């Protein structure tokens, strides 16, 4: 309750159940008229205790548990887990399996980005773009279904390889689908960068500078739209990205429009990469066998999910179950940064800013509380302050 002589603040709660959010999350925005003066997040409504559950299941069973962390980027989670387990077991999946994993990962990226265009268009109130982008998303989902037998939760991975092969007919249907999708992507890129009513809602909104993005630890397309070079496919190539490199898509503007453009331009890279892999699919086995007990050790795997960097820490004690499994998803990194950007914007822009990072709360699987009042935001240090802080620390240590 506001104090009697304090200016009356108006708090708008968004979520856990709200039409703008397809997943549960709770946001509180204090508004002054239409302008947001503070923002507050609380997540974790989709917390399922997966990290604990994983300690009680066998290595193989976990693969499917992990795949269900997120419905959109299910493959990348399973892939990260597989790579971690293979790492621990000192096995490498055969090159053909790696290539197929990469194809599925890129198809998933296309699927995720198309979904995201639709969601953000919906937040912006552009229903037609929403409907058309989701219509076209069906194409990539059908491709994935044809390839793996399921539209979501593809279960393409096995510990040590993949389940499904890509034969000539599959490759042809994927190529055909990609041609259509590429044409559509070109069209959507035109729409989001030239439609004047849409640009009114994206241009100059939610600007995050490169320095801010770096300090607050943004990842994925959100960071790249602010010209932060952070793409693990380039920095630390995994699976088949070593043999088939990708280009990093960067933008300097850092606003919503840049985030849109980065994501769509990334799709062209995906199309190109998938075609390239299909043309030069390495021959060989699909999977190698892994022991049921994984040797003791610990490993960290970081992959570039459609939304940004996923991080997996897996520790084995040599048993048939993991000792500790830790997942960190991209949303948690981006949410803390972007929620601060909402302050000072119109309430109408907030759903767009939220959607701009492509939040995934079930992925996130944890709860954040970032109270961002005006005092608190001063806790954020600029590089200069940080440098000074560092010098002070060195001094106090007599160095």
């Amino acid at each position, binding site marked *: 309750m506001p104090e009697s002589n304090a200016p009356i603040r108006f708090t708008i709660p968004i979520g856990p159940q709200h039409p703008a959010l397809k997943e549960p999350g709770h946001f509180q925005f204090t508004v002054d008229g239409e302008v947001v003066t503070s923002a507050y997040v609380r997540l974790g409504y989709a917390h399922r205790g997966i990290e604990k559950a994983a300690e009680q299941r066998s290595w193989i069973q976990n693969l499917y548990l992990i795949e269900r962390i997120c419905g959109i980027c299910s493959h990348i989670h399973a892939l990260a887990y597989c790579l971690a387990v293979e790492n621990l077991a000192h096995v490498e999946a055969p090159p053909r399996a790696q290539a197929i994993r990469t194809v599925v990962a890129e198809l998933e990226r296309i699927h995720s980005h198309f979904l995201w265009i639709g969601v953000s268009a919906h937040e912006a109130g552009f229903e037609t773009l929403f409907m058309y982008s989701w219509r076209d998303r069906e194409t990539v989902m059908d491709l994935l279904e044809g390839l793996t037998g399921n539209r979501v939760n593809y279960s393409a991975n096995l510990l040590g390889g993949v389940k499904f092969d890509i034969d000539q007919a599959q490759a042809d249907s994927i190529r055909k689908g990609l041609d259509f999708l590429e044409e559509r992507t070109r069209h959507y890129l035109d729409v989001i960068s030239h439609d004047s009513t849409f640009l009114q809602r994206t241009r100059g909104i939610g600007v995050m500078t490169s320095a801010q993005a770096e300090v607050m630890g943004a990842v994925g397309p959100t960071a790249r739209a602010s010209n932060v070079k952070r793409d693990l496919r380039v920095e*630390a190539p995994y699976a088949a990205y070593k043999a088939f490199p990708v280009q990093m898509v960067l933008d300097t503007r850092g606003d919503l429009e840049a985030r849109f453009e980065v994501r769509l331009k990334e799709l062209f890279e995906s199309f190109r990469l998938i075609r390239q892999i299909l043309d030069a699919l390495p021959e060989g086995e699909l999977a190698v066998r892994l022991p049921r007990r994984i040797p003791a050790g610990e490993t960290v795997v970081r992959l570039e999910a459609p939304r940004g960097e996923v991080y997996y820490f897996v520790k084995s004690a040599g048993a048939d179950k993991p000792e500790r499994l*830790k997942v960190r998803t991209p949303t948690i990194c981006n949410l*803390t940064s972007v929620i601060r950007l909402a302050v000072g914007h119109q309430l109408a822009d907030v759903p767009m800013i939220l959607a701009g990072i492509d939040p995934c709360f079930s992925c996130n*699987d944890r*709860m*954040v509380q970032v109270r961002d009042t005006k005092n608190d935001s001063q806790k954020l240090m600029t590089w200069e302050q*940080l440098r000074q802080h560092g010098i002070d*620390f060195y001094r106090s240590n007599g160095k």
Partner: protein
Amino acid sequence: MNTQEIITLAEGIVQQWDWATEVSHPRPNQLDVHVKLLKELVPIVVGLRVKRLGYLCAIVGIDLGPEANEMEVLYHFCPGDVLIALRVRVPRQDGTVPSLSEVIPSAEVFERELHEMFGIEITGLRNTERLYLPESWPEGLYPLCKDFNPASLTDHAGEN
């Protein structure tokens, strides 16, 4: 900066605390730093951060079990494809680590999760409200500890 340069740079920074740390290379792109003196943790982090090696990927807590009677906290910094792991050991009961949130804002989330899941106290954390466990979660029960038994929860399930 390539992998080798980053590793060398990081090692150079950590060397300044050689009385408090122990460095090892489990993998070519990984640098493990065992921090033996807790109060040196934040200065080391600042040292890394100033050289732009301070992209904090995650903070991982590991319960080493009742026999070891210790918990391990891992701070993973991931500049490029390098992994710098600061490892800290704390006692299983009343373990305490300093907060990094003054230096790295995004650390707050990870630290609160750490506190919630392992019962490790974080000194200097501004906000210690419940993080991702429900409000009705019993006090002093830390789900990621090895001796936590999920079945014990059924006793509390009827409360709300």
